[in-house]
């Protein structure tokens, strides 16, 4: 039994990782009061940016950062449209998804089918020798190890730093932040950009560590799942971890079942994560009272004077 479950859980962590990065990125954006529905587009575009960078330079780390920067770039467009031009956040995010997916397919066509080095799994010294847990959590690639620290930093940032507190205040009540002498516009930009960077890292993970290969449609709805997971997580990083691995588990399970040659049609298996997303939202809707949803989420800051 253990021989079956440990590899499955190991794969769970791996497929949960890109979702975790993206969920935290979207959570940061939303904590600053901006809804970014472009996650899907950002993830796929940054997956390409990461791939191309690693492919041409041979450096996986550089690729990873390039993914983040690509996320930053698209998030900036969203920020400009919504924060500076007061565009509708829902529609701008959708447009960004269309643009991001389009750019990915347009620029990525020459690379289809090409492999790249990326990140290989490497046992973490000492910790990987812990029985069971070590096999699940510490025989992964470097980006997974990084992802263990990110939620903690995320929590620390919002609870223990003044910038985090200021960012949260513009998500709750921008006028109060302005009255306290903060700069709401700048803070919102930083939330959107910071979030975009994290989402970009999630995208980079897909091409550098998950597939090691360029194909179209790499993001496969993970961006949308991340948007849903922020709601499911009640805007708390701890619950985001749970949610991301839950979906990672379903995806890993579904892949394994397909590979095992079951006679359940593959389309039904493929639909599992999407159906689960809706179920997760239904589940979290029942306990909405406990959520930390930012009060000013989705509303723009009108200029004065």
């Amino acid at each position, binding site marked *: 039994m253990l021989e079956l479950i440990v590899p499955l859980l190991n794969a769970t962590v791996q497929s949960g990782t890109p979702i975790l990065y993206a969920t935290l990125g979207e959570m940061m954006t939303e904590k600053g009061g901006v809804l970014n529905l472009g996650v899907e587009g950002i993830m796929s575009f940054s997956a390409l940016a990461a791939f191309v960078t690693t492919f041409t330079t041979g450096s996986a780390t550089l690729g990873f950062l390039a993914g983040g920067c690509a996320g930053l770039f698209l998030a900036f467009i969203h920020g400009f449209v919504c924060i500076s031009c007061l565009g509708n956040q829902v529609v701008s995010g959708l447009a960004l998804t269309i643009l991001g997916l389009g750019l990915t397919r347009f620029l990525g066509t020459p690379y289809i089918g090409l492999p790249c080095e990326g990140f290989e799994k490497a046992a973490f010294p000492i910790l990987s020798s812990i029985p069971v847990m070590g096999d699940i959590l510490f025989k992964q690639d470097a980006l997974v190890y990084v992802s263990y620290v990110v939620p903690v930093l995320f929590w620390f940032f919002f609870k223990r730093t*003044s*910038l985090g*507190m*200021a960012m949260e205040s513009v998500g709750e*009540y921008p006028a109060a932040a*302005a009255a*306290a*002498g903060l700069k709401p516009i700048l803070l919102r930009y930083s939330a959107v950009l910071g979030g975009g960077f994290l989402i970009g890292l999630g995208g980079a993970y897909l091409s550098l560590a998950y597939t090691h290969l360029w194909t179209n449609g790499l993001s496969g709805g993970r961006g949308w799942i991340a948007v849903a997971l922020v709601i499911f997580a009640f805007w708390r990083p701890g619950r985001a971890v749970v949610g991301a691995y839950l979906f990672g588990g379903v995806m890993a399970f579904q892949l394994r079942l397909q590979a095992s040659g079951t006679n359940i049609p593959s389309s039904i298996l493929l639909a599992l994560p999407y159906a689960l997303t809706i179920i997760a939202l239904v589940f979290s809707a029942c306990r909405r009272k406990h959520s930390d949803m930012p009060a000013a989420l989705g509303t723009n800051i009108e200029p004065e*004077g």
Partner: protein
Amino acid sequence: MSTCDFIRPARKPLTENEVPVVRLVGVTKRFGKVVANNNINLDLYPGRIKALLGENGAGKSTMMSMLAGRYKPDEGHIEIDGKVMDFSSSKEAINAGIGMVYQHFMLVESMTVAQNVLLGQTGGFFINPKEMEKRVGELAGRFGLDVAPGARVCDLSMGEKQRVEILKLLYRDSRILIFDEPTAVLTPEETIRLFEALWKMAEQGKSIVFISHKLEEVLALADDIAILRRGVIEGEVDPDCVESKADLACRMVGKEVILEIDRAPMESGKPVLEVRNLSGMGLNEVDFEVRQGEIVALVGVAGNGQKPLVESICGLRKPPRDTIVIGGKPWRRFFAESTWKRSLSYIPEDRLGLATLRECDMVDNILLTTRKGFAIGPWLDKKRASTETVGLVEKFDIRPGRIQALAWQLSGGNLQKAVLARELYREPVLIVAEQPTQGLDISATEEVWKRLLEVRAMAGILLVTGDLNEALQLADRIAVIYNGRILGMLPTSDKATPDKIGPLMAGIVEEAAV
């Protein structure tokens, strides 16, 4: 308010050689075509409380927002300690020692008191909640402002929230403290505590600006009074030299105002609204009735249960069974069978967000609640709706007089007239009017009052208001609500009523007779 009985420290006369800490010199501010402030000159001195008296829309808030760095003056300048300042953000104003308590609190509800006080003032990059709470606790103790630093702001009362706002200013060492209508949300009890805190702060050399349109409070509190009318400083008066309130009021509004209106007695008929033992949603055994031909005022400090009560009467929330009877029908049946005419009219506080459609023209806005009267099967008779709208616009003198005008283009007074026109067109049997004159100028207020008194002939009116004068002028009976409970139903014909309202609003029940 006649309940403001307290000992105030002796007024200090202004000596010759005192230097103003703040000077506004020839300040003008325009919004589009509207001149909000015109050539304002004003001096503020340390250790003194300056009251800024003016009607709603006189330009008080604009003026103070410029001082607080939110707006930039179009002309003129602001001097602090003799230096010309050009604020381009709130931060600069805060650094210059100017602090403001806004009418709508600028507090982040989901954060703690300490976090709110220290927002933007933390200094270092890392923060320590324990340490923050300790510092805020000490500060609160020093000024006798009682509030728990670790509590979340959303759990606080209005009075406590205001103390948090004051703490914010004190933490920033503000020398000039501006209070925008601070008593609007307070009980008389809390008002007195605020005044005491203000005197304490003035004693320590702070310069305080108290913005209000309540004459009694201004006379009781201030060292100097400046009167603002239509964006212009109308004059400065010494409160000790004021002959009468009426005189002050005159100067505030610019004409001999009838602060009183003739209320002809009216026979009251059948009950049109009966609320029976309504509990839940923050309400507690609310029990009263409104009869046709009478006005019942519901007064109380905002947030004491007025909202759930009004919303359940008007069908926005579902009350428990058998608690509300409208026009002789139980709530459920009334709303199931509700007709557009001879029914319930609700004139909400939120005129632009709830009572009208922002982006729609007058015809569409008139149709909002009367559409059933213009329906022919599934169709709407737009032509007849237009003719009727033209008629109403003329009858109620709704400017700018075009039926193509969109709701957001109308001024507050005209918008309220439009809502009133529409709701009266329905010939209601019950009217629920919520803060019907809030933010209106004197003439519009008079107009609304007159209409409400007229309409008693066919309807009973529940008037929800925070303006005691309005309640005393219009109502036959006044119900005082506190903490979801109606503490008293007082007839306005009784001379003692005005004095009884204050304590009741603060939840103080003296007699067993209530």
